[in-house]
């Protein structure tokens, strides 16, 4: 009898105690989701007036995100809110942001990290260390260098997408899959890796603003702008920023990136336009759909020679000429012209890199991995050696696919 009572008493105590623990909000680490603001894109800049570090955050606005109930922009609210603050360190700036925010910001869902040109020139180190140390930050966010006003970029609206972060990432993915004019650094993890391993310099994708004058950039008219058709994409991801250590020291344009990608074996797709045989005013397009490249180092004393083997397979996509001569000569010349284009791209990239003396291709890393003894010897004077590295590209290109028809259309 007594035993039963104690059992019941325990049960009662447990029943009272647990709910008590469960209900108070904000105890320890509990945060109601309605008290959180999710930062999806963060930009780092220096305030031009004060010279202090500036953090600009794009916070997702739950009121503006469409739900199943009211599909479409919820109540005409902007789907995000842009806020910025200054500080001596990144963390101080973040804390200063929270002073003007109604919600606690969480940074664990960062999708893109933007560095302004000034930031990149001054060096990424303060930001990178914060990101590496902070528990909320994740290395899956994608880094970009922005040319132009970062704040304007964060405030602009994208076609098809609600949030800036997702838009940037999808754009990047699309470019990567379709055009390949993008360096392979697609996460902070790769960024850290490139910064820490020996014999390779950092290269980051660059975003360019292309907002025309008088165009509304989202913040002013909010939802109304959606009524218009064909809002232009405010940004263009093009080119790449080159770093020496963590400091920006040059840019690549698309051609040079293509060369860079041929060397580092990261190309996926590339379109090349040639003139039609015998008809100089008509054009044909070849798309590279399959490629591989291989880098081999040869060391003789202080002379380093890199053998680069590139293999590319292309596909004829369109042909504006009147007659498609599918004979041996035409195919050979097409292959040769493809190889020449690739060769030229590689040379352009090499030229630019030598000019800046930046080993972004990782020739040094290649030595470190495969010829560690030589690397030990050359490591000290690598910058001088790099400018003299001979690269011997050996390009083998072939057009394999000609589409679903053989001859071009014959118009009466």
């Amino acid at each position, binding site marked *: 009898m007594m035993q039963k009572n104690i059992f019941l008493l325990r049960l009662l105590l447990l029943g009272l105690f647990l709910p008590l623990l469960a209900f108070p909000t904000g105890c320890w680490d509990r945060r109601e989701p309605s008290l959180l603001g999710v930062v999806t894109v963060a930009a780092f800049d220096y305030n031009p007036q004060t010279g202090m570090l500036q953090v600009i955050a794009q916070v997702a606005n739950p009121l503006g995100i469409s739900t199943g109930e009211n599909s479409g922009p919820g109540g005409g609210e902007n789907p995000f809110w842009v806020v910025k603050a200054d500080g001596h360190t990144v963390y101080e700036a973040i804390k200063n942001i929270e002073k003007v925010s109604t919600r606690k910001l969480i940074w664990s869902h960062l999708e893109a990290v933007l560095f302004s040109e000034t930031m990149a020139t001054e060096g990424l180190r303060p930001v990178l260390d914060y990101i590496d140390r902070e528990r909320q930050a*994740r290395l*899956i966010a994608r880094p970009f260098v922005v040319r132009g006003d970062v704040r304007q970029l964060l405030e602009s609206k994208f076609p098809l997408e609600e949030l800036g972060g997702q838009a940037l990432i999808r754009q990047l993915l699309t470019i990567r899959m379709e055009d390949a004019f993008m360096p392979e650094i697609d996460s902070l993890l790769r960024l850290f890796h490139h910064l820490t391993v020996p014999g390779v310099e950092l290269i980051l994708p660059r975003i360019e603003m292309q907002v025309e004058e008088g165009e509304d950039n989202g913040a002013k008219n909010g939802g109304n702008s959606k009524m218009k058709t064909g809002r232009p994409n405010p940004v263009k991801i093009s080119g790449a920023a080159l770093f020496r250590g963590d400091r920006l020291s040059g840019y690549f344009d698309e051609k040079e990136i293509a060369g860079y990608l041929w060397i580092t074996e990261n190309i996926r797709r590339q379109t090349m336009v040639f003139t039609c045989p015998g008809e100089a005013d008509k054009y044909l397009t070849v798309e590279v759909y399959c490629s591989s490249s291989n880098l081999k180092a040869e060391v003789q004393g202080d002379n380093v020679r890199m053998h680069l083997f590139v293999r590319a397979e292309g596909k004829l996509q369109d042909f504006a000429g009147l007659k498609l001569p599918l004979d041996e000569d035409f195919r050979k010349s097409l292959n040769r012209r493809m190889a020449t284009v690739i060769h030229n791209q590689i040379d352009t990239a090499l030229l630019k890199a030598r000019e800046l003396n930046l080993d972004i291709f990782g020739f040094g890393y290649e030595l470190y991995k*495969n010829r560690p003894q030589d690397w030990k010897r050359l490591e000290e004077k690598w910058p001088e050696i790099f400018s003299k590295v001979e690269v011997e590209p050996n390009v083998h290109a072939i057009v394999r696919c000609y589409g679903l028809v053989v001859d071009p259309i014959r118009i009466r």
Partner: protein
Amino acid sequence: MFLFTEKIGNSQLFNILFIMRTTIVISFLPVLTTTQALQDAWLASIITFFLSALCVYLIGRLALIFPDKSIIQYSQELLGSWPGRLFSLFYPGLFLFMGATDLRIYGELLRSVFLPETPLIVIQSSIVIAAVMVVYAGLEPLGRMADLIFPVFTLSILFTLLFPVVEADFGNLQPVLYNGWRPVLFATLTPVAIIAQYAHLTMLIPSVVEPQKALRSALSSLLWASLILVFAALIVVAVLGADEGARAAFPVFKLIRAIRISEFLERIEAFPTFAWGLGLFITLSVNLYSLSKGLSQLCRLKNHRHLLLPLAVILSTLALQGYSDFLEIRSFFKPQVAAPFVFFLLLFPLAVLWTAYFFKKKDSVF
């Protein structure tokens, strides 16, 4: 089957030891983080296995000479009552210390990653209370818990390690032996020192159903755990890069956080954390069991359960107060510190006991 026994099967012994070893080894991947072995961490892991196997053999062989006695009992038999007791104090001390350290590392992980504002004591209690409960229920439920946890634990760990393979760049493993053998051999010291966990064999063997096969179970558990370790070292270096991995506080954890397979397949660090929590639960339970059982045998108490609560409190307090922050744990696990300290606690009593055993054997023969 129908009596309440305090026995565990050999496969349960295997599970327990495997879970213990894998948990602590995965937790901060000492082959990588304690020294400058860098991309050769996998090589260090392989060497670790052979050195550890030697230690396990030394521990297990002696225990098997007295299959129905724990170290507390046979050390008294070998060395006489009082010296034996004195020497057998080493091992409970070792258990207490290692339990506390494991607990603190887990607490640090959760505090620095998941629950920064929750008091450490709450995080630790969640495991300690469960461990006390299972040891109170007996060794048999403990073995069964190991049976239940083993598949979940192993699958979570494998999932954690296999998932990032997509992102792996095995070129990061080159060059091999860039800095020569020295750092590699140096890197094996701490993981081999952690083999002190297998000292639990000396307490568990009397309760194993087939003690003669216990050593085989122990060695095979070590083998499998070492395979996991090699694999972990490979994957961490291949994905994070050697430098990033060595700088990380919890490399495996960092690995899983840095991975994105698709827009949806990301943020799965709950898996390794869960596996780690389960593994730590087993580790702590075994520590508490060996501790209470050993002390009760030392003091000739009939029921070791009475010692459980005070020991759990001591363990938690030690975990809380023993280290002021994670840096202290890291610096403790530097080979220069950890190896001499642990080897002294582990091997010195063992050496004395072996010597005593050989003398005794000689006496009995002649």
